[in-house]
């Protein structure tokens, strides 16, 4: 286990959440219990946290919109007091990596958390503008033309595309694609972005990766030119 600390966001007096915390501690992880959105945001930026478990009833919007964008590549686990199939499906659809609930026993909580911690975010694909990335099939295409990218390059492109035009920090990009923390001085991300840029420049001029000095990279997508409503027939 590489990172031992799990952030638990919720009301500290909630007995269900307290039981969850005990199960986490009993499994050998450390718990960082926080209630304030500001503290949570700060901790995610400053602390080494393996995953965040949040009370969906209270923090769904905070985690699955704002924090998910600001801390790309993190692992998000929602917690609900009871089990409801539709609710669980909705949280997963909005980007939660896992949904735990108060009906689960300690062993199940541990097993599900372990799975979240050990398996980095699996690609599920991105479709934005003329860019299509199918993570399961391992295919990326621009305006219908397949891009000859390595798996790493495709994952970097996908991580940038997911950020929807916002800059992604090198460290966050590394964590999302490589699944680990980035060591100080490591230029792996930069080398991969440079190679990706060269490939995109040749075949996908509508995709541009911009550098934000001291921060990271941002993907700029130029929408594909619209085809005319009626086909143009040229007679020779």
């Amino acid at each position, binding site marked *: 286990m*590489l*990172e*031992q600390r799990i952030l638990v966001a919720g009301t500290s007096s909630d007995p269900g959440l307290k039981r969850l915390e005990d199960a986490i501690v009993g499994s050998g992880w450390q718990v960082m219990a926080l209630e304030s959105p500001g503290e949570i945001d700060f901790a995610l930026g400053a602390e*080494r946290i*393996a995953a965040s478990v949040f009370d969906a009833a209270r923090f769904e919007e905070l985690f699955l919109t704002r924090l998910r964008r600001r801390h790309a590549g993190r692992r998000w686990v929602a917690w609900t007091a009871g089990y409801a199939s539709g609710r669980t499906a909705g949280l997963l659809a909005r980007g939660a990596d896992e949904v735990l609930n108060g009906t689960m026993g300690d062993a199940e909580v541990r097993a599900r958390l372990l799975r979240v911690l050990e398996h980095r975010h699996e690609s599920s694909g991105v479709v934005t503008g003329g860019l299509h990335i199918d993570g399961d099939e391992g295919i990326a295409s621009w305006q219908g033309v397949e891009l000859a990218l390595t798996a*790493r390059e495709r994952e970097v492109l996908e991580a940038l595309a997911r950020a929807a035009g916002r800059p992604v920090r090198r460290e966050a990009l590394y*964590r999302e694609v*490589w*699944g*680990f*923390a*980035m*060591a*100080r*001085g*490591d*230029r*792996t*991300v*930069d*080398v*991969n972005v*440079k*190679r990706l840029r060269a490939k995109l420049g040749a075949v996908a001029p509508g995709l541009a990766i911009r550098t934000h000095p001291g921060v990271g990279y941002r993907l700029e997508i130029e929408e594909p030119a619209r085809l005319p409503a009626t086909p143009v027939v040229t007679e020779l």
Partner: protein
Amino acid sequence: MRLAVVPRPAQFFPLFTAAGENALAAARLMEARVRNFPETDVAQADVKALESEGDDLTREIIQLLNTQYVTPFDREDIYELARCVDDVVDHIEHASDLLSLYRVEGPMEQAKEQARVLVGATESLSAALGLLREPQSAREHLVVVKRFEDEGDRIVRDAIAALFEDEGVSPLFVIRWKDIFEALEQAIDACETASHVVGNILVKNG
């Protein structure tokens, strides 16, 4: 072993000059290789070719040593110097090989810094080897080798510390870069060891 009837002690000098230039060429290739690895034009085979060239030069020096009754310096010093300069290239080749062997996906700033220091140290060592007949000029270069070696020590400590700053760094990443940092450090240390031998020769013969 048949000894030469006509002494040719001066033949050692161009061989040591060539060995120094070969070590410098290897260091420059290493620097170019690590700068943008794996997006580099320098192949491991290029570095390996210089390592073989270094072996040939060492063999030539030892062969000459074994056939010469008269030598410009003590026999053991000539043997030791040839071996030490060869070690520099061997360590460079080893570090370069690890980049491919460990499937490194991108360079680290600290390794680029080490390579810069390595080039500086071999430049000075090479200059000293080319001036074995001019002790005073050669000594100035030996001082510079020592300065680079000190800088190399500081860089490698910082480099290894960077690997352990965050427990979330991949253990495989730590293993591969620790080995590479250490191999580069050994190459820099080998420059200093060779410069000590040059220093001893200059003291005895200056």
